[in-house]
């Protein structure tokens, strides 16, 4: 017979039967065996797994002392030598959802064990942790406790045994944003015609690629006075100093470079390169000012049309950027510009 998977179950103060909102400040704790919903979880695990301990924490305490709470919970569960952590389900409770996500991620990283959290797909904890852990969609209704725990148990056992994990729709977890190839029954051209005809008939169809969800950004107020403005030039066209000392990637960027241009009247071709896999860089290499218009900006500066050109150009290569990296690069550049007193930015793309 297969080894029984050792399971630890995480609950908040309410489901751990300590109390309601009045006990939300209670710190972490542990108890051997099951508590409350653990009964249904144990049933779902059957003979394949055993809940060796239940850990719990008040929602407020976890939210306000996340690091301590995690340290303590991990320390308490470690002696039980778990193979799997099941956290929740938290349904639509945001603080509980975040706690389930955070403790699952910590167990995965620090104890190198499998973890499954449960919560509604719109729970803030889901958006925070779905990329890094498996989250089973519980919906909002507590009436779904038993089926949710059954799904979590089945997925958790597979993860703990390192079995292959099927698709989200089959295993019940929220997609983690990682795409995989698989063989299809029909070629793409046939599927595309099928989809178009379904659309024309008004039948249901499912797009194979979903539109990405970006967090929007609020545009800054317009500059009132250009004559006193400090303007920076920023590009994703891959401008680098000759030799590319910061090793900026021509595609799939993870970093940016900061190029000093104080006292530079114009970008001389022999001193700069363009590295970028997404466009023909010949023109930019012939005259880097056409990628980043330092020459024109200097003229405007001389005429007094703008106050000052910022003394650094920030540059990265934008081809096939992962959204996370692009977001981070953008934030870091914006932070530097802001602390340097820059009031306006011209972004040149390719």
């Amino acid at each position, binding site marked *: 017979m297969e080894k029984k998977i050792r399971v630890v179950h995480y609950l908040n103060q309410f489901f751990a039967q300590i109390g309601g909102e009045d006990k939300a400040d209670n710190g972490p704790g542990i108890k051997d065996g099951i508590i409350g919903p653990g009964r249904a979880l144990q049933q779902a695990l059957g003979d394949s797994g055993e809940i060796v301990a239940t850990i719990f924490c008040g929602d407020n305490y976890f939210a306000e002392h996340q690091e301590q709470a995690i340290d303590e919970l991990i320390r308490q569960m470690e002696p039980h030598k778990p193979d799997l952590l099941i956290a929740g389900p938290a349904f639509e409770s945001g603080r509980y959802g975040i706690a389930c996500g955070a403790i699952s991620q910590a167990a995965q990283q620090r104890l190198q064990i499998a973890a499954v959290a449960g919560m509604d797909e719109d729970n803030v904890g889901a958006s925070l942790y779905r990329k890094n852990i498996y989250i089973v969609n519980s919906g909002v209704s507590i009436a779904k406790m038993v089926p949710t725990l059954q799904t979590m148990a089945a997925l958790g056992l597979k993860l703990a045994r390192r079995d292959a*994990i099927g*698709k*989200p729709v089959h295993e019940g977890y929220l*997609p*983690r*944003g*990682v*795409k*995989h*190839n*698989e*063989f*299809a029954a029909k*070629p*793409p*051209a*046939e*599927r*595309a*015609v099928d*989809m*178009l*005809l379904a*659309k*024309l008939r008004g039948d249901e*169809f499912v*797009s*194979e*690629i*979903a*539109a*990405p969800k970006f967090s929007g950004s609020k545009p800054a107020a317009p500059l009132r006075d250009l004559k006193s403005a400090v303007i920076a030039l920023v590009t994703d066209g891959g401008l680098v100093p000759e030799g590319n000392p910061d090793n900026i*990637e*021509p*595609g*799939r960027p993870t970093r940016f470079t900061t190029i000093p241009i104080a006292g530079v009247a114009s970008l001389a071709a022999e001193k700069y390169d363009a*590295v970028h*896999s*997404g*466009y*023909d860089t010949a023109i930019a290499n012939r005259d880097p000012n056409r990628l980043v218009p330092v020459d024109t900006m200097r003229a405007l500066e001389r005429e007094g049309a703008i106050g000052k050109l910022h003394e650094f150009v920030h540059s990265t290569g934008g*081809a*096939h*950027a*992962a*959204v*996370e990296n692009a977001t981070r690069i953008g934030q870091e550049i914006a932070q530097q510009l802001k602390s340097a007193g820059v009031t306006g930015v011209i972004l040149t793309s390719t």
Partner: protein
Amino acid sequence: MRLDLGKIHVQDVRFDAQTALDNHVLSIDRQELTSLLAQEPLFERVEIELAHPGESCRILRVLDVLEPRYRLNGPNFPGALDPNGLVGDGETRALSNVAVVETDQVATKSRSIIDMSGPAATYSPIGNTYNVVLVPHPKAGVDSDDYRLAVKKAGLKAATYLAAAAKNVMPDETQTFDLPPVAANHGPKDLPRIAYVFPMHSHQHPTQQKETVFYGSNIQGFMPTIVHPNEILDGALMFSYSAFTWFAQNHPVIHELYRRHGRDLWFAGVVLTIAPVTIAEKERNTALAARLAKEVLNADGILATKIGGGAVDTDLMMIYTRAEEMGMKATLIIMERYPDTGITFVPANVNALVTPGLTRDAITLPAVDRAIGADTIALDNANPDSENPGLTPTPARDALNLWIGDIVGAISQVGASRLTTYMS
């Protein structure tokens, strides 16, 4: 206009004293074909190799792939090989399971690969064709762009030379592609009229001045236009980059629209266009392309595909949006690259996308006995676009860690592949 494509199912290819097609066996006079191709003054010498399906053999640095074709009633690849003329009508012979494979002997970063057996061959039709591989070596000092154009022309020569052997051979199967002039192209009222909108190139990597893409034109400044679908199938179009011409000759979308023409749709026609570089040009060309589909082809729905990198995604989305604004329904085929990047330029109104697969998906190809086209391959999986002179090249016959997208023909942007994707 009607094209009769007479296919001969070749069962073996071998070198012999004379080039001939006899009893489904293609014999090639290696000397004669070599001399024909070596006439090109930019080449120092040309080698020709054969690779058979099932063989433990790998072809590297693949530049383009062609199906051997010979037109009985007119020019072959007019503007690119033969002088000007038109294609898409009359009779054409095809060696339907033979491919001419061009290799690029100056490419330093090429990862394009064909395995004639093993896992790669399960992904691509080109791993299952009898491949006649051209290995042209440039003379010293020859410009690499000029060399590549010469290699592509050599491919056209070889493809025509080989299929000419089928001139007097009865085809095993004749596929007829017949679509009347626009004014006469009326189907029953209950069949939706579908047009195919086809950006055949993205000028984010511009064509060479002397490059021959469509009827010998370098298609710089190309405006959207109506073409007969048969022209694309019959040698008017060779891709510049990012796609293999075999998939224009065997265009999956055009084949599919023909296959279902009169059954559950009516093939309204093809709008051929490019992806230009500036926003103004993109706005103009995408609106015009949609307008042609709507007001000239009278389409109810359009299907669009792209050739090129991420920059063309914007053109596809603009075509889609313009088409729907004009009252048509739209669907796109759009290739995915990285597992975690997604397609960035998808407006909220775009809800009908089909993927031919994810290119940067790791695959390990086993070692092989024989390699054609290169002795080594420089694989920098962490940073594939960079020149990395410090990298130790891997022997070409070794087991290789590549991506699905490196396998020639595994994922074609015009909708050929065996794949789809799912998100986990």
